């Protein structure tokens, strides 16, 4: 048969194509490389994303522990610094520039590499085809490229630790002029160049992935899977991908202008700058605020790119384990759409004190506060779903409930920060650090853990250890609050973020005990993650074998065999008869009702339609002949002889 490129309508061609494969399981042997490395199977790509995300997470967390040590014991010397960081930790003291580098890369890793790629990449890849009933992504090849761009990007970012002048140090937002002038600080040199290259690769990866997710959800659902029967995970992944599609190109634009300023002598972001010992720079006419606008046009949607998949995952996990339909499915979808829309018009709340017109600031304030409405809808719906539920405290469920808790406590402070007037005091203080770590950092990480524990059986065919999981949950939950809650009070008192040492300033020195407390709690959290790592990798190899539907869930992914096969379902793709949340229906004996269960009717089967013939039926010629004769046909109006 013809190749996909020249089929008139691959939409309806590909299922048949795959059906043929599906019928004889593990048909052809794949080489190690095509199975594990350059795999185009969405389930394998999902695992690749997850493992890479976990590794990056370890780096990110490790960095936070290092700079927390500096904050807690600024006068101590730690030989550890010298052995790990070499010249940046001479005599066991952390170099101030390197402190900034660690904070910057920590933020970058956590935001982009762990919670965007690691979270969205893993679960969109795993769940979109499985839950909508598709054989694979719309373009498995693009999907593979997406992962490898991400991988390359991770390598480039981490390689900036190996360069002489250290990694980028101007914060995860890489504001100019620090990021635009190579001489501004050590990290502004090669380190920032590598950061920019890494982010551009990352953007390419995110776009390739996101485009695929959107097309797969909108175009490749199985029979009966109407939009209002989609699991909330899929809604969340879809809207996340749309946000990425619209906002990442803007970051690309911001980055390109920054690269031009750095290396080609333009002045988009630069003006009137005097650099120590260098004198006034020739750059003039630009504005660093322009960068901030472009950056935060991505930056704010980005926090929802991080959060929404976690919210979607929690919806599924909570509904399944509360054995109840999710409360207000439509309201959940509408609030996701509302959040997505609003997220594009609120970016100014990150810039209240850049001297923006107060009228504009007020507008940004109003739209920001309106986000509280859909967020509250979601929270109440989670609580209402849990209410009187027949709750099964699986580890995934505990993390999902943990997400709800963190989302509330972190979300409330957002209302304070959204006030243009209050923000004058709170901006760039530890209050901000507390806010975003709870609502975005911890909540999304909890959603990610919920997803890992819940879908581990689907990914690896094994169960994770529940005792270790419970311990992991409680330690992580407690340490998250112990670390980030006290930061609110520091911030209210005016302690600024991104400072290397507080003991030299009397007003801030009084917080030393709190800083020690936070650091000790952070180490507690670190130990908890070791439990997770052990549990995760040990279960892959030695875990108890999973059954097909261990959580007695309704959604389609649990109808596929435990052993992964190419094309997901051995026979026909199941047909869907109802929404995803029909748990504990009074008229049913069992407390769940899978989406593909026909109920009393006869099961219907999804028959892939007959592929359209796309071969050319006219007279055939050699390509060169076709080429030259085509000019004759055009200019001499020669007729084709049949």
């Amino acid at each position, binding site marked *: 048969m013809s190749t996909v*490129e*020249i*089929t*008139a*309508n*691959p*939409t*309806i061609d590909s299922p048949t194509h795959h059906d043929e494969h599906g019928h004889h399981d593990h048909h052809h042997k794949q080489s190690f490389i095509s199975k594990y490395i350059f795999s185009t199977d969405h389930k394998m790509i999902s695992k690749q994303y997850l493992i890479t995300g976990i590794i990056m997470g370890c780096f990110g967390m490790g960095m936070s522990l290092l700079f927390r040590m500096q904050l807690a014991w600024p006068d101590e010397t730690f030989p550890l610094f010298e052995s790990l960081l070499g010249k940046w930790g001479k005599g066991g003291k952390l170099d101030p520039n390197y402190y900034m580098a660690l904070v910057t890369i920590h933020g970058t890793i956590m935001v982009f590499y762990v919670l965007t790629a690691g979270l969205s990449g893993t679960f969109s890849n795993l769940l979109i085809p499985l839950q909508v009933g598709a054989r694979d992504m*719309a*373009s498995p090849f*693009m999907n593979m490229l997406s992962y490898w761009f991400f991988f390359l990007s991770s390598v480039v970012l981490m390689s900036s630790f190996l360069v002489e002048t250290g990694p980028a140090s101007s914060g995860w937002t890489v504001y100019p002029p620090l990021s635009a002038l190579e001489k501004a600080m050590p990290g502004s040199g090669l380190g920032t160049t590598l950061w920019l290259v890494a982010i551009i690769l990352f953007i390419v990866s995110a*776009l390739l992935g996101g*485009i695929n997710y959107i*097309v797969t959800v*909108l*175009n*490749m*659902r199985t*029979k009966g*899977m109407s939009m209002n029967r989609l699991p909330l995970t899929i809604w969340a992944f879809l809207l996340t991908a749309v946000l990425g*599609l*619209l*906002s990442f*190109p*803007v970051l690309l*634009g*911001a980055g*390109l*202008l920054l690269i*031009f300023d750095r290396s*080609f*002598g*333009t*002045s*988009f972001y630069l*003006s009137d700058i005097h650099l120590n010992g260098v004198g006034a720079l*020739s750059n*003039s*006419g630009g504005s660093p605020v*322009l960068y901030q*606008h472009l950056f935060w046009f991505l930056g704010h949607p980005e926090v929802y790119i991080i959060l929404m998949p976690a919210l979607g995952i929690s919806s599924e996990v909570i509904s399944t384990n509360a054995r109840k339909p999710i409360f207000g499915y439509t309201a959940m979808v509408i609030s996701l759409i509302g959040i997505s829309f609003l997220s594009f018009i609120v970016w100014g709340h990150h810039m209240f004190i850049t001297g923006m017109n107060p009228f504009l600031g007020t507008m940004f304030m109003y739209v920001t506060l309106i986000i509280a409405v859909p967020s509250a809808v979601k929270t109440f719906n989670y609580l209402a779903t849990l209410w009187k539920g027949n709750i099964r405290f699986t580890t995934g469920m505990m993390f999902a409930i943990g997400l709800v808790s963190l989302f509330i406590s972190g979300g409330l402070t957002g209302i304070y920060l959204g006030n243009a007037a209050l923000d004058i005091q709170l901006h760039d203080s530890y209050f901000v650090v507390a806010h975003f770590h709870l609502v975005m950092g911890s909540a999304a990480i909890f959603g990610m853990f919920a997803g890992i524990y819940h879908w581990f059986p689907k990914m690896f065919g094994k169960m994770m250890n529940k005792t270790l999981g419970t311990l992991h949950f409680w330690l992580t939950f407690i340490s998250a609050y112990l670390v980030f809650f006290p930061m609110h009070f520091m911030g209210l008192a005016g302690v600024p973020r991104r400072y290397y040492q507080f003991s030299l300033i009397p007003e801030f020195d009084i917080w030393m005990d709190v800083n020690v407390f936070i650091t000790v709690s952070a180490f507690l959290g670190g130990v908890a993650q070791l439990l997770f790592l052990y549990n995760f990798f040990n279960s892959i190899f030695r875990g108890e074998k999973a059954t097909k539907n261990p959580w007695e869930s309704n959604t389609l992914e649990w109808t596929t065999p435990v052993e992964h096969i190419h094309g997901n379902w051995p026979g026909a793709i199941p047909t869907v008869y109802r929404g995803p949340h029909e748990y504990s229906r009074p008229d049913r004996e069992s407390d769940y009702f899978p989406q593909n269960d026909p109920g009393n009717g006869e099961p219907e089967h*999804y*028959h892939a*339609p*007959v592929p359209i*013939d*796309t071969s*050319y039926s*006219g007279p*055939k010629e050699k*390509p060169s002949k*076709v*080429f030259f*004769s*085509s*000019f004759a*046909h*055009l*200019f001499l109006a020669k007729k*084709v002889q049949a």
Partner: protein
Amino acid sequence: MSTNNIQSMSTHKNSFSEKTFITWLFIVASSMLFIAFSSAYWVHKTDGMNNNAWLSFDLPIQFWISTVIVFISSVFMQFSFNAAKNDNVYKIPSLLTITLILALSFCVSQYLAWVEMKDMGLFFSNREPGEISASFVYVLSGVHLFHILGGIVLIIIALVKSTRLEIHKKSMVFINICKTYWHFLGIVWIFLILFLYFAK
């Protein structure tokens, strides 16, 4: 059985292929890039005018010549597409070749426009604060040209396919993608030149 199933399935599937859909999403993404740059330009201009630091200059004539070229190339792209739709397969390669030549002339004309700007004393890196307007013109036209290079690759692939008789009435996906993308680039250029003309 099967006809029935195709029908019931089409209520859940969009009628056009995934590849076309992917192209449209790509177009959305790159539109965002151009929107970002042109809003940056606009904001900068308003700021600059307030501080008497904005240089307005007339675009070099070559940019206008490019506009005509890109328009004609779109027309020929459409002819190629129509030839495929009407199964005039033996006309497609020549029409695509003309499109390709026009596309390459567009690149040359853009290059000459940059040379002309340089001769006018307007460089990519500005000397005076107000000359950022010129930097923006370079960026906008440069990023557009970069997209055009992608389009040229598509045209070349289509040309090769057409000589192998792989583009015809029953196999329109690829030429459709080419046509969509190329028209998009033409529209973007016309938008950019009008924007730069009216917001100079």
